[in-house]
C-alpha cells in the first residue's frame, strides 16, 4: 500500500484538533446586541443537554428579574456565587474554585466579556472560562459582537459608544462552536419597547443613540459576517485535517509586517487567512527600530501581543533589529524566500512621510519579484481601549523638553548677546546651532525642534533689525533665518537619531549581557542545586530584584533557591506559584491572574513541560512590570528552564548509571560471597564432622591435617570478612583516617610479623633506606595495605622465590615497591586488578582470593593522597611490582636528641 503524501492530514491541522481535545469544549452564543435572547437560547440548550443526561451546572447567570429567564433557570443546578467585598460594596462573582471542585461536565457562564470585581482571581471572566476549559470542563457562554476586541473600533465608529469590556479574538478562535442568536432589528426594537431588554445603568444615557435601527443593522451585519467567516475557516480546517485534497502549492511564503498599531492584530488575522487560502507558510515580522524604545509601554506590549497572536495562529513570529523598516523587511524577506509581503496602509501623517519616506512606497519600489499587499486600515491609529501609556512619575516629558529647549535656546541667546560685539550678525546664528545640538543630545528630537524655533524667535527679536520686534526687515536676514531653521531641524533629526540608536544599542546590550551572564553562570554550575542557585543569584543581581525558583515536589511547589538569602515566599504567595505551574501561565504581579501579589510568577517552560516556576519581585514600588523587562524575564526563564531540565537529565543519567553499576556489583558480590564464604565453611564443617565421628580410627597425622585445615579455613574466612568490612567502610565513607607520625619500616615490620606463617616458604628481601622521614599515616590501614600486598605476593608466586620490599625517597615522596617472582599480570589486567572482585584468570586452578584485597589497597592509599600501581613484568622480566607512592608531609617533625 502506498500513501501519497498529499492526502495525509497536515500535522498542524491535526495538532489544532488535538489541542482542543485536551481541554473542555467551548460554545459561544453570539449576538449582535443586548436583548437578542442569547441567555435564553443558552439556557434552552442547557435544558436540552440535561435531558440528554449531561451533568451540568450554572456557574453564573444574570436573570435581571426577567420571568422567562428565571423560569429557565428552574430545574438547573446553580453553584453558589462568591461574595467579594470591594470599597464597602458587596459584589457577587462566579466561584471558580467551587465550579472546579464540583466539576460538572458542562458549566453555564453568562456574559463572557464581564470584568470581575477587584480581588477576584482573574481580572476578566474570559480568563475564568479559559481556566475552566483547561480543567476539562465544557463551557456555554454568551457574547455580544461589540465586545470582540478586533471589532472594538468598528463598533465604536458605528455606534459612537466605546465598549470598555473586550474579549480577545483568541477566545472566539478557540471556541469549538459558535451559535449566532439572531432576531430581526424590528423584533429587537419591539422587545426594547416592551421593556424586555435589560440595560446597565451607564448605557441608558446612550440608549437613544445605541438602539437606532441603523446601528443595530450594522451590528447585526458584523455578527453575521463574523460567523460566516468563521464557518469558512472551519470548513478549510476540516478539509485540511481530513486530507481532502486541494491545491497545495508549497512555494508560497507570506510575510506580514507588524507595528505597534492596534491594527496589526487585524493585519495578522488577515495574513493568516490569506496564507490559509494559499496554503502557504507565513510569518509575522516586527522590525525593531530605535523608535521602538520611544514607544509607550502599552504600544510595546501590543507589539509583543501581536507577535504572540501570530504564534498562536500558527505563524512564525520574528523580531529583527533594524534601521529602515522597508529595507530591512526586504532583506529579511529575500533571505527567507518570501513571495508576498502584507503590510498595513500607512497611518502616518503626510509630514512624517515627507521626512522619513513612506514605508509602503519604499517597499513597493524595492520589492521587485515580491508581491506587496497593502491592507487598508479604516480607522485612525489610536490607543483606544488600552491603558494610556504609563509614564515614570515626576515631571511630564513635554515639560522637560520645553525646559531643555528654553535652556538651550536661552543659553545660546545669552552667549550671543555677550559675543554680539565681537561677531558679525549672521555668524551669531552659529551659536544658536550649538544650543539646538545641546537640546538634541540632552533630550531628543522634540526638545531640539522646540529649541530651533525658540532660537529663531530669540534671534529675530533681539538681534535682527528692527530690534525687539518679530519683524524682519531685510531679505538677507530672512534667508539666514530660514536656512538656520532648516539646518537646525536636520541637525536635530540626525542627532536625535544617533541618540536613539545609542539608547537602543545600550538596551540590546543590556539584554544580551543579562542572557549571556545567565548562560555563563549556569554553564559553570554542576548539579541541580548549584544551577538553581546560579539562576536566582544571576537574575536577582541583574534585575536588582528578589528572585526565587520553585520546583514541584512531593508536597506541592517548594522553594528550592532564593536570592537574596532569606527573602522567601509566604504560603499565600505559594498558591500563586502553584497556579502558574499548573496552568503554564504567568501569574501574580502585573499579570491578569492574581495581580495583587507582590511577586511575578513565570512558568519555566522546558521541552518536557513546565519544569517549575520562577518568582520575581523587583525592588520598585511600581506594581507594573514594564513589558520590556517582562520579555527579558521570559527569555531568562526560558534559559533557566533549559538549564534545570539539563541538570535533571544529567542527574537522572548519573543515577541510572550508578544503579546499573550497583546492580552489576551486587551480582558479582553475591556470587563472590557465596563462593568465598561457603568454601571455607564447607572445609571446616567437613573436617569437624570427620573429627567427631566415633571409631573411625583416624591416625594422628590425619587428625592434625584436619585441624590444620580448620584453622586455615577459619583464618581465610576471617580475612574475607575483614576485607568485606574494609571495602564497605571505604565505599560508604565511614572509614575514619587516624593519622599519626609513622615510620614506614615499623609498618612493614608489623605487617611481616602478622604474616610469618604465610611467608614461611618465601625468601624475604627487605631494604628500607635509612633516614626516611616520618609519614603522617593511619598505621592500621597502611599496615593492612602491606598485609594484603604481601599475602598476594606469597599466594601468587611459587615457594622458594623471593618477595622484596624496597622503600626509598624519591623527590617529595616515599616510594615503596613490593615485588614478587610470580607469573606476573597480563598488561591488559594491570589496571583492572584494582577493581572490586576482579581476579586474573590463570587458566589453571584459581588461587583462592577475595578479589577485594587490591581494591582495598587502592582505596586506602588514595585516602592518604598516595598512588598505587602495578608493574609487570617486574625486575628481571618476571613477576609483578606493586608500587606505592606516598607524599612526604612538608612539616615532617624533627626530633631533638640533645640528651647525648
Amino acid at each position, binding site marked *: 500500500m502506498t500513501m501519497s503524501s498529499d492526502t495525509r492530514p497536515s500535522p498542524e491541522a491535526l495538532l489544532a484538533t488535538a489541542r482542543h481535545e485536551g481541554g473542555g469544549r467551548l460554545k459561544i452564543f453570539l449576538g449582535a446586541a443586548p436583548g437578542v435572547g442569547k441567555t435564553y437560547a443558552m439556557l434552552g440548550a442547557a435544558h436540552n443537554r440535561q435531558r440528554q443526561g449531561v451533568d451540568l451546572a450554572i456557574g453564573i447567570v444574570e436573570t435581571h428579574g426577567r420571568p422567562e429567564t428565571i423560569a429557565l433557570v428552574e430545574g438547573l443546578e446553580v453553584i453558589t456565587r462568591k461574595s467579594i467585598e470591594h470599597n464597602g460594596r458587596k459584589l457577587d462573582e462566579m466561584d471558580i474554585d467551587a465550579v472546579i471542585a464540583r466539576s460538572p461536565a458542562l458549566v453555564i457562564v453568562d456574559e463572557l466579556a464581564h470584568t470581575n470585581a477587584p480581588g477576584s482571581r482573574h481580572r476578566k471572566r474570559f480568563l475564568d472560562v479559559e481556566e475552566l476549559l483547561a480543567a476539562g470542563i465544557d463551557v456555554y457562554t454568551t457574547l455580544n459582537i461589540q465586545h470582540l476586541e478586533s471589532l472594538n473600533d468598528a463598533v465604536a465608529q458605528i455606534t459612537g459608544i466605546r465598549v470598555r469590556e473586550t474579549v480577545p479574538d483568541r477566545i472566539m478562535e478557540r471556541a469549538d462552536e459558535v451559535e449566532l442568536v439572531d432576531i430581526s432589528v424590528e423584533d429587537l426594537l419591539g422587545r426594547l419597547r416592551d421593556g424586555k431588554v435589560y440595560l446597565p445603568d451607564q448605557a441608558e444615557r446612550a440608549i437613544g443613540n445605541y438602539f437606532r435601527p441603523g446601528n443595530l443593522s450594522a451590528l447585526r451585519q458584523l455578527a453575521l459576517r463574523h460567523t460566516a467567516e468563521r464557518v469558512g475557516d472551519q470548513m478549510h480546517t476540516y478539509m485540511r485535517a481530513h486530507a481532502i485534497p486541494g491545491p497545495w502549492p508549497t512555494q508560497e511564503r507570506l510575510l506580514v509586517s507588524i507595528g505597534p498599531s492596534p491594527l496589526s492584530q487585524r493585519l495578522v488575522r488577515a495574513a493568516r487567512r490569506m496564507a490559509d487560502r494559499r496554503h502557504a507558510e507565513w510569518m509575522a515580522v516586527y522590525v525593531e527600530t530605535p523608535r521602538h524604545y520611544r514607544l509607550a509601554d502599552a504600544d510595546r506590549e501590543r507589539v509583543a501581543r501581536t507577535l504572540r497572536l501570530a504564534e498562536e495562529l500558527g505563524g512564525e513570529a520574528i523580531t529583527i533589529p533594524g534601521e529602515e523598516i522597508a529595507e530591512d523587511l526586504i532583506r529579511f524577506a529575500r533571505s527567507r524566500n518570501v513571495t508576498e509581503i502584507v503590510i498595513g496602509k500607512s497611518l502616518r501623517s503626510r509630514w512624517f512621510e515627507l521626512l522619513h519616506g513612506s514605508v509602503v512606497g519604499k517597499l513597493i519600489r524595492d520589492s521587485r519579484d515580491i508581491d506587496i499587499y497593502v491592507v487598508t486600515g479604516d480607522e485612525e491609529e489610536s490607543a483606544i481601549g488600552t491603558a494610556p501609556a504609563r509614564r515614570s512619575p515626576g515631571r511630564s516629558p513635554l515639560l522637560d523638553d520645553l525646559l531643555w529647549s528654553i535652556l538651550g535656546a536661552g543659553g545660546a541667546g545669552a552667549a550671543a548677546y555677550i559675543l554680539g560685539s565681537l561677531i558679525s550678525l549672521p555668524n551669531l546664528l552659529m551659536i544658536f546651532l550649538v544650543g539646538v545640538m545641546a537640546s538634541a543630545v540632552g533630550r531628543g528630537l522634540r526638545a531640539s525642534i522646540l529649541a530651533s524655533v525658540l532660537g529663531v524667535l530669540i534671534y529675530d527679536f533681539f538681534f535682527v533689525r528692527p530690534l525687539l520686534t518679530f519683524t524682519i526687515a531685510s531679505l538677507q536676514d530672512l534667508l539666514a533665518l530660514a536656512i538656520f531653521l532648516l539646518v537646525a531641524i536636520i541637525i536635530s533629526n540626525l542627532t536625535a537619531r544617533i541618540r536613539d540608536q545609542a539608547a537602543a544599542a545600550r538596551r540590546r546590550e543590556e539584554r544580551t549581557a543579562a542572557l549571556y551572564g545567565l548562560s555563563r553562570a549556569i554553564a559553570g554550575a554542576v548539579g541541580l542545586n548549584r544551577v538553581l542557585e546560579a539562576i536566582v543569584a544571576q537574575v536577582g543581581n541583574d534585575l536588582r530584584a528578589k528572585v526565587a525558583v520553585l520546583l514541584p515536589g512531593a508536597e506541592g511547589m517548594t522553594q528550592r533557591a532564593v536570592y537574596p538569602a532569606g527573602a522567601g515566599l509566604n504560603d499565600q504567595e505559594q498558591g500563586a506559584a502553584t497556579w502558574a505551574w499548573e496552568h503554564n501561565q504567568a501569574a501574580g504581579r502585573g499579570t491578569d491572574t492574581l495581580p495583587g501579589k507582590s511577586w511575578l510568577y513565570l512558568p519555566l517552560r522546558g521541552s518536557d513541560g513546565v519544569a517549575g516556576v520562577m518568582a520575581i519581585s523587583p525592588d520598585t514600588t511600581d506594581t507594573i512590570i514594564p513589558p520590556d523587562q517582562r520579555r527579558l524575564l521570559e527569555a531568562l526563564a526560558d534559559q533557566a528552564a533549559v538549564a534545570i531540565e539539563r541538570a535533571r537529565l544529567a542527574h537522572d543519567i548519573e543515577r541510572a548509571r550508578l544503579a546499573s553499576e550497583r546492580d552489576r556489583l551486587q551480582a558479582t558480590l553475591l556470587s563472590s560471597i557465596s563462593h568465598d564464604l561457603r568454601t571455607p565453611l564447607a572445609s571446616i564443617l567437613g573436617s569437624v564432622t570427620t573429627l567427631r565421628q566415633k571409631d573411625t580410627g583416624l591416625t594422628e597425622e590425619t587428625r592434625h591435617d584436619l585441624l590444620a585445615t580448620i584453622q586455615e579455613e577459619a583464618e581465610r574466612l576471617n580475612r574475607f570478612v575483614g576485607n568485606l568490612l574494609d571495602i564497605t567502610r571505604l565505599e560508604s565513607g565511614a572509614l575514619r583516617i587516624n593519622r599519626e*607520625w609513622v*615510620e614506614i*619500616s*615499623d609498618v612493614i615490620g*608489623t605487617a*611481616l610479623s602478622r604474616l610469618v606463617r604465610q611467608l614461611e616458604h618465601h625468601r624475604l628481601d*627487605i631494604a628500607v633506606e635509612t633516614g626516611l622521614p616520618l609519614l603522617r599515616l593511619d598505621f*592500621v590501614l597502611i599496615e593492612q595495605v602491606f598485609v594484603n600486598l604481601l599475602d598476594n605476593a606469597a599466594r601468587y608466586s611459587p615457594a622458594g622465590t623471593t618477595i622484596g620490599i624496597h622503600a626509598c625517597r624519591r623527590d617529595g615522596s616515599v616510594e615503596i615497591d613490593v615485588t614478587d617472582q610470580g607469573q606476573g599480570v597480563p598488561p591488559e589486567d594491570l589496571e583492572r586488578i584494582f577493581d572490586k572482585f576482579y581476579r586474573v584468570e590463570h587458566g589453571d586452578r584459581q588461587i583462592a582470593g577475595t578479589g577485594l584485597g587490591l581494591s582495598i589497597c587502592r582505596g586506602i592509599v588514595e585516602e592518604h593522597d598516595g598512588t598505587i600501581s602495578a608493574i609487570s613484568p617486574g625486575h628481571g622480566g618476571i613477576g609483578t611490582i606493586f608500587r606505592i607512592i606516598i607524599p612526604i608531609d612538608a612539616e615532617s617533625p624533627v626530633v631533638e636528641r640533645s640528651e647525648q
Partner: protein
Amino acid sequence: MSQQPTRILVVDDEPQIRRFLRASLGVHHYQIIEAATGEEGLTRAVADHPDLVILDLGLPDIDGTEVIRRLREWSKVPIIILSVRGRESDKIDALDRGADDYVTKPFGIGELLARIRAALRHQLQSETDQPLFRAGGLAVDLARRAVTVDDREIRLTPKEYELLRHLVIHAGKVLTHQYLLREVWGPTFMRETHYLRVYVGTLRQKIEPEPAQPRYILTEPGVGYRLRDADE
C-alpha cells in the same frame, strides 16, 4: 601456700565464646566464672573476687568501658578486654580507663594465654621484684641498668633506657603511646608520638637482630608497643 586455682571471670554475651573459653582455659587449670551482661559481671566480681577478668567490650546492657570504670573504683584485678579490629580507639579508651591488655577477636588461644600470664605476673610482680628480665638473646638487668643482646653489652641513651625499662617492667603487656610518652618524656609530650616512633626505631636498631622484622619490641598498630615476653 596451697595451690588454689586461678579464677577468671569471663564477661561476654556470646554463649559460644564462653563455652570455648571455659573448655580451653579449663584445660590450663583456670577456674571460670561466667557472666553474660555487664551488670552480672560487676555483681560476680564483687561476690567471687576473681583473679582476672576477661571482658568483651560490646555488651548488651552497659558499655564495656563503663564496666572497667566501675570495677576500677574498688578493685585492681587485671582486666583483659576482647575487641575487634578497626576499633583501636575503643581499645585505647579501655586501656586508659584501667584495662591491662586486650586481645583482638578472632584470636587463638595461645595469644590469650600469653596475655593472661603476663597480666597475672604483673599482679604478683609488685610484691616480688624481679630485677632481671630475659627474652631470647635480650637481657635487661634493672638493678645494674645493664642491657645485653647475646651477651654483648648495648649502650643506650638515658631516654632509650627509660623506654626499654618501662617495656621490661610491663613485659608482655601492651603499653599505649600516651602512657609511654607520659612516663618517659613527661605529660607535656603526650601528643608527640613521633618522639616515640624515632626512639623505638633507634632502640630497635640497637637491640634487634633484624630491625626490619623486630623480634622483641612489637608494634601494636594504632595502640602502642609491647615487649615480647620471655615465654612467648
